[in-house]
């Protein structure tokens, strides 16, 4: 049996247009948008539902922009289905591409993207040409706790694809206008080092997802989220932070979340020029040390974790991460058992050697 792919894709296009038209109409009845400047991207966000507005806005408060909407801004309409009395539909779209098993669809011209999360019945839809996106969830209460740490990341990722910027699953620490990108898989000591670096006087662009723009002669890191996330073991190393945790009711598999906008706004910087990539490694060494690292190893630390956490547009994202590890020097930081000593070492090395 021949399959009419054009007819099948037309069903996706019709679904996307229907719901973006609806979102645009609903936005006329919502409160005026809040504008954000996230690296080179401009966002105008309108939310239906107070609980969802709280959850989406918490981690990006630092990026609120008092300027009026720019023509280049992306309009994002976020709908809490339970608050709006309009629950999102289940996935009933045709499956003719392997990515549809992930409930991910990219139009054949790459301009329209759609992703569905059946656990939260959440839809994320973007039409790049309309500069309009929708995130529609059944209920803000059903979103997992960790969504508060990096809201709208899928939309930001998709929007950055046609630009010279890209999201990266990494932390950035800075001293004296010298920025270092810290990356590594879970348990590598990235977040612990970031917290210790802040306590040692360094500043940060965030410790989870950041944005890197390579459009200029230098690579610039931008802050997207104001959050620091620590698992219980890492939090136990910094008992003075326990009272700052925004989610004390978290379950055992969730990380503690601290918003720097609330507790250490001076340590949060909007952007910094990157001077290198550092891959931390937990060791039993008595003292910390740093050595050059093969860029291939740095790519293995940075790219898989970034790509697997962001769906769609993997090829252009991967190309930007490759470009980054090939243009910046790469090092391995061997952490000692004392995170503050490791962070002080990193700070001094950054100031004296870069």
């Amino acid at each position: 049996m021949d399959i009419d792919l054009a007819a099948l894709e037309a069903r996706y296009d019709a679904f996307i247009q229907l719901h973006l038209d609806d979102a645009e109409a609903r936005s006329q009845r919502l409160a005026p948008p809040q504008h954000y400047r996230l690296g080179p991207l401009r966002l105008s966000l309108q939310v239906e539902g107070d609980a969802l507005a709280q959850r989406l806005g918490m981690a990006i408060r630092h990026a609120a922009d008092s300027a009026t909407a720019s023509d280049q801004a992306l309009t994002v309409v976020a709908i809490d289905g339970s608050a709006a009395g309009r629950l999102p539909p289940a996935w009933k779209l045709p499956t003719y591409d392997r990515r549809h098993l992930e409930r991910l669809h990219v139009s054949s011209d790459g301009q329209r993207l759609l992703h569905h999360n059946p656990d939260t019945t959440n839809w994320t839809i973007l039409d790049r040409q309309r500069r309009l996106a929708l995130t529609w969830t059944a209920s803000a209460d059903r979103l997992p706790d960790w969504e508060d740490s990096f809201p709208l990341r899928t939309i930001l990722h998709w929007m950055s694809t046609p630009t010279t910027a890209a999201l990266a699953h990494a932390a950035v620490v800075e001293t004296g206008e010298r920025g270092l990108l810290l990356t590594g898989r879970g348990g590598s000591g990235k977040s612990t080092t970031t917290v210790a670096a802040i306590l040692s006087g360094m500043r940060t662009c965030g410790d989870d997802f950041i944005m890197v723009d390579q459009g200029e002669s230098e690579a610039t890191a931008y802050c997207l989220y104001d959050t620091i996330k620590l698992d219980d073991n890492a939090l136990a190393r910094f008992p003075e932070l326990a009272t700052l945790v925004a989610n004390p009711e978290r379950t055992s598999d969730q990380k503690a979340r601290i918003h720097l906008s609330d507790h250490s706004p001076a340590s949060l910087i909007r952007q910094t020029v990157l001077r290198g990539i550092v891959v931390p490694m937990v060791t039993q060494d008595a003292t910390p040390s740093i050595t050059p690292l093969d860029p291939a190893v740095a790519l293995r630390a940075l790219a898989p974790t970034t790509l697997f956490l962001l769906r769609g547009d993997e090829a252009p994202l991967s190309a930007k991460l490759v470009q980054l590890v090939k243009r910046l020097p790469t090092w391995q930081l061997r952490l000692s058992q004392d995170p503050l000593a490791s962070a002080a070492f990193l700070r001094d090395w950054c100031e004296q050697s870069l």
Partner: protein
Amino acid sequence: MLTINTSAISSESFDNEIVAIHFLKGTYFSLRGASMAMWSWLQQGADETTLAKLLATRYQLDPKQSMEAVSKAIDLLRAAELVIESDQALPDFGAYDLSAGPDDYQEAVIESFEDLQELIAIDPVHEVDPMQGWPHRPPTMTLD
């Protein structure tokens, strides 16, 4: 003919290693030694016989040793879904880059990493009704 599964793979070549990432399966790979040369030739499209001939020519290997090295590597690459079958025609032998890979022969190493697979939330691949979509299965067909 075999070729790289480019719809699911991103890869990059460095001096001593090729990093390949299967972004649908959540796996990633470090290719070293002779597998770097094989990867380069697979990017142009090649079958096992051609790869063995290329490897033997590139490193002055015994044909049997070359075929064994290629078979072992291709088994791993196929199992990992890094390479797929293609119905494209083979390039001329002279079109392949015979300087690909390390200067001196080193055994092909294909190291796989599966520590991040949990980050990929994908359903088991199953048959799906093309019009109703997931999770509807297509109508069952029986032979009377």
